């Protein structure tokens, strides 16, 4: 060990002889970065259409594949939500819809949006594209496994969509799939529908595990020279922590899926108590439906943060770049992400307050739930303090970021309501809950996705998106989303229950009818407004303004590739060497208002750049 130490000294001494001095305060070895520990990565270069674009091992192509497939699935989820809103707002128009259809659409909308859209988009899409580029790696560490990961996801989506075409249709048990009702007759899709759903989820977990291992090891073991963990963009931190959560939470989903499949197919009674169906005693007995709820929410709650943490990370970077300021409290932001991730494993039973539990149990889970508000609030303050006196560019990306902060605070505050047992019990299963989670994990992460698309599209495609269309897209979405979800809080307060096909002659009808019509109209407009983005992308791909290198004047590595869009292997012959964090914006004394991560210290010796 002492020998290693000496070697270190000699290398520094050698480099001090060869490096010529810079400005004031520069010692000759200022720019020294340790040599590479790991040999350069051996890559398989595709040579045909199939190996380049279909079964491709380039993380960037895989990222785009994930993005496109998740978006396609998301559009199906959007159409399902339209059908639901049509029924709720204008039941006379939706006469073709039965109650069974409605439950099936609710279920598929929820599952698609949470798992197959948001999770796949953030981790599979942004994770694949950005992690290697932002950490300075050539590719993911196991490109082949990464490719298989996407195709497993493809099969999972295929199985999921196949359930629309089997006898009985897709499952209609709600996205939580609670037994016993999910596998008993009378629930729509209790035959093949639920089986295909469970198989699809299992395939998704297997596929995701393959991808997730790639993301984790790339971040941990394949960073470029000079890239320490605390010099990584927060985007990478968010995706990394979310992946850790996924690796530990998806097992519970896999196990509960396997057990429920066996309950359905083989007639085991893991989750099934002694139960009557249409007046007949079934063969089931002795199982525990609550066990399923525990397993499901041990997955389900971290899942919320699997979606939220990448959004937190990405929005931090977007805000920093577009307000030309370093992110306020970078280390705090990192630790907040990690702490939120860790806490998310200790709050799952707050989804089960009305399932029946010991009061002390509820007390415990309410406490842990409210503690999460601390690191989360800290992040919100830091975003606002980053904007504070920044040189803010009021472009589309920034609008989405601001929209995110507003919706996230809104959804977060209602979360504090619902985290308390005593408040949750009357609000449980009302539209207040629907409003809460759509705000906090639907609209808020979606705002970040949109911001990220406008931010990174120039990198992926080499052309800029239209700002004008982008602003229309934002205002329609932002105001429209508020028109949808803000009134829903009120619906919850007056006691309108969620998941109901219609209200019949209950007293709610009179006061909720017009509001429901308004919400539905807004939902149609917001949904349609999303096609502005698709139009924008298609047009910009053809005639968009060429982006050139680093159009946003950003610091992080993904903008510093030799070719734009980056090619396979990302960095040409030489890997980048990192000397600083990615947040040196508007540094006093610097020539420009940004100092890319690869700029050596000797070049900016006279500035007040952060020592990172």
């Amino acid at each position, binding site marked *: 060990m002492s020998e290693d130490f000496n070697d*270190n000294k000699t290398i520094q001494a050698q480099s001090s002889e060869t490096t010529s001095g810079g400005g004031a305060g520069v010692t000759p070895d200022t720019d020294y970065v340790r040599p590479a520990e790991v040999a350069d990565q051996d890559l398989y270069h595709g040579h045909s259409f199939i190996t380049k674009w279909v079964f491709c091992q380039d993380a960037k192509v895989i990222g785009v594949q994930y993005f496109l497939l998740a978006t396609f699935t998301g559009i199906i989820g959007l159409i399902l939500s339209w059908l639901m809103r049509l029924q709720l707002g204008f039941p006379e128009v939706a006469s073709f819809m039965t109650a069974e259809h409605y439950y099936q659409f609710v279920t598929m909308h929820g599952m698609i949006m949470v798992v197959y859209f948001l999770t796949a988009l953030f981790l599979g899409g942004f994770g694949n594209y950005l992690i290697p580029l932002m950490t300075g790696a050539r590719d993911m560490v196991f490109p082949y496994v990464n490719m298989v990961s996407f195709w497993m996801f493809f099969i999972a989506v295929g199985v999921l969509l196949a359930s629309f075409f089997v006898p009985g249709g897709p499952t209609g048990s709600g996205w939580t799939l609670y037994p016993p009702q999910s596998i008993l007759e009378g629930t729509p899709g209790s035959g093949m529908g639920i089986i295909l759903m469970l198989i699809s989820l299992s395939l998704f977990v297997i596929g995701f595990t393959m991808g997730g291992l790639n993301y984790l090891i790339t971040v941990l073991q394949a960073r470029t020279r000079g890239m320490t963990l605390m010099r990584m963009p927060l985007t990478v931190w968010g995706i990394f922590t979310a992946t850790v959560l996924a690796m530990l939470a998806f097992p519970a989903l896999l196990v509960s899926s396997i057990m429920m499949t066996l309950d359905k197919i083989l007639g085991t009674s893991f989750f099934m108590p002694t139960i009557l169906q249409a007046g007949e005693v079934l063969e089931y007995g002795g199982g525990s439906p609550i066990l399923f709820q525990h397993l499901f929410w041990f997955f389900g709650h971290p899942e919320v943060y699997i979606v939220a943490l990448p959004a937190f990370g990405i929005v931090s970077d977007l805000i920093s770049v577009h307000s030309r300021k370093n992110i306020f409290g970078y280390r705090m932001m990192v630790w907040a992400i990690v702490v939120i991730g860790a806490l998310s494993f200790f709050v799952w039973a707050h989804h089960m307050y009305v399932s029946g539990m010991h009061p002390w149990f509820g007390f415990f889970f309410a406490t842990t739930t409210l503690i999460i508000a601390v690191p989360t609030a800290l992040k919100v303050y830091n975003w606002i303090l980053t904007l504070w006196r920044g040189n803010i560019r009021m472009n589309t990306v920034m609008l989405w970021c601001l929209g995110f902060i507003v919706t996230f605070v809104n959804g977060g505050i209602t979360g504090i309501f619902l985290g308390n047992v005593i408040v949750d019990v009357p609000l449980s299963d009302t539209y207040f809950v629907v409003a809460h989670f759509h705000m906090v994990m639907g609209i808020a992460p979606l705002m970040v996705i949109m911001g990220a698309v406008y931010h990174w599209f120039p990198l992926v495609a080499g052309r800029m998106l239209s700002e004008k269309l982008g602003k229309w897209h934002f205002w329609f979405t932002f105001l429209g989303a508020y028109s949808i979800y803000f009134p829903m809080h009120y619906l919850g307060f007056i006691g309108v229950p969620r998941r109901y096909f219609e209200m019949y002659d209950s007293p709610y009808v009179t006061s909720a009818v017009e509001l429901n019509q308004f919400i539905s109209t807004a939902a149609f407009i917001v949904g349609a407004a999303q096609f502005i983005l698709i139009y924008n992308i298609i047009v910009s791909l053809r005639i968009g303004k060429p982006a050139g290198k680093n159009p946003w004047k950003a610091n992080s590595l993904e903008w510093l590739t030799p070719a734009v869009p980056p090619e396979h292997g990302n960095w040409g012959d030489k890997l980048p060497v990192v000397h600083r964090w990615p947040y040196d914006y508007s540094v006093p004394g610097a020539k420009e208002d940004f100092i890319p991560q690869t700029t050596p210290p000797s070049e900016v010796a006279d500035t007040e750049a952060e020592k990172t």
Partner: protein
Amino acid sequence: MADPKIEGYEFKPGYKGMARDTSSDQTMFKGVHWGKAMMWIFLLSDTFIFSCFLISYMKGRGSTTVEWPNPSEVFALNVGGVPVPLLLIAIMTFVLITSSGTMALAVKYGYERNRKMCGWLILATALGGLTFVGMQAFEWSKLIHEGVRPWTNPFGAPQFGSFFFMITGFHGTHVSIGVIFLSIYAYKTLAGHYDTGKRGWFTSMKGNYVEIEILGLYWHFVDLVWVFIFAFFYLW
């Protein structure tokens, strides 16, 4: 194990060293092969899978109203008319643990670049795994013959059959996958792919004897899980 030599990097012992490695650039686990780090994290995830299974089992067994079958009777084997409790399981466990030993030796010979010893020991490990799966199949067929099914069993609580077949089945799947991979890697080792640098058929990447150690990690994990299943099903 000695620290690997890394140019320009100084190792420190204890927690300080851990903090130093974590805050350094490039890698967090210094000198650790990518695949090895990947296997450790995969095993952590797999641990959660088996934990979920076993916790569900504890919950199911703890809350059953029908009596749980007595494992010493259910799993007993008749030898010359005398029921010997846990005999088959003892042999199965012995075989599996022994195969862990041969795997550890294979890793050692792999790092010594002793191609033949390494390859044959991996093959021995695969045979051990195959014997285990075979005996498990025998045990399953015996129980099925006696009327135990995933949805019912003549000895008591129906959940006994459900959990037993599901969890040993899931573990047996792990062993079977392990046997398949052991066979592939035994072939790769004996054919000298690690010495000639022949590229893999699927991934078209060059192999290395580290892969034997990674495979070994998986195999030892499968053994360790068996110890827990053994304790929870046969000794409880």
